């Protein structure tokens, strides 16, 4: 087995295990940490896919900014460990876990089954050369073909900033 295949399996396993941990952990702090791990694994996968720019962006934005934000909130709110399920929907609650698990399995199974029916998609080796110089290509495409979306996204960020400040502000405006 060559290096890329091994790397793939390693990163994949790491991502899945970390995600499972995020979902299964009771302590939110641990969840956040595990998610950062998962993002790291995904960044490795991006590198394997000849998308270094995306990998770096993943680390910077996701792991560096968003997760830090989560951390701040978790520490600010002093989020406690999660309690056991309350007696809401008394009839269904005991089975909630089971139902959710079943549904998830079904969903996952559906996807796998569907995907398996696709013909094997081999990656084009020649295209690998193109994607190496992907940063310049990405930049060029962003600012010409997708310029409108680019600008719109900036406005979106502005709106999100203002919204976050307004919503999280303490007290009523006078």
């Amino acid at each position: 087995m060559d290096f890329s295949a091994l790397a793939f399996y390693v990163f994949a396993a790491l991502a899945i295990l970390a995600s499972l941990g995020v979902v299964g952990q009771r302590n939110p702090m641990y969840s956040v940490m595990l998610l950062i791990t998962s993002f790291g694994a995904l960044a490795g996968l991006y590198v394997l896919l000849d998308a270094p720019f995306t990998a770096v962006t993943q680390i910077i934005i996701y792991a560096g900014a968003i997760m830090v934000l989560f951390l701040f909130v978790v520490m600010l709110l002093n989020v406690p460990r999660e309690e056991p399920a309350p007696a809401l929907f008394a009839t269904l609650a005991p089975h909630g876990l089971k139902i959710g698990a079943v549904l998830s399995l079904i969903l996952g199974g559906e996807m796998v089954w569907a995907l398996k029916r696709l013909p094997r998609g081999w990656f084009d080796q020649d295209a690998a050369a193109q994607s190496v110089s992907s940063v310049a290509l990405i930049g060029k495409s962003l600012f010409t073909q997708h310029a409108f979306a680019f600008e719109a996204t900036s406005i979106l960020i502005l709106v999100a900033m203002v919204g976050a400040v307004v919503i999280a502000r303490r007290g009523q405006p006078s």
Partner: protein
Amino acid sequence: MITLNHYLILSALLFAIGTAGVFLRRNLITMLLSIEIMLNAVNLTFVAVGRYLGTVDGQIITFFVMTVAAAEAAVGLALVIALFRHRETLSPDAFTALKW
């Protein structure tokens, strides 16, 4: 050899895990984290298929997805903070004002 199918199956699994997390967890923040997992799974799909087709569009889409995810995480966390101030709890079951 690693084929596109491997990546697609992987992202499908990640997506399922994320969905399960949204459904199962009784903590608002953890639910948001699960949503991030889902978004990441989708990102992986895009990049993989973009690589398969030999274009750069997959990465461009991921660029936008990340931006949107950041914005959404920010606003979502602001909401969580506001809600927490109301009820001193982060369990979604406590917020039933929309109940009939």
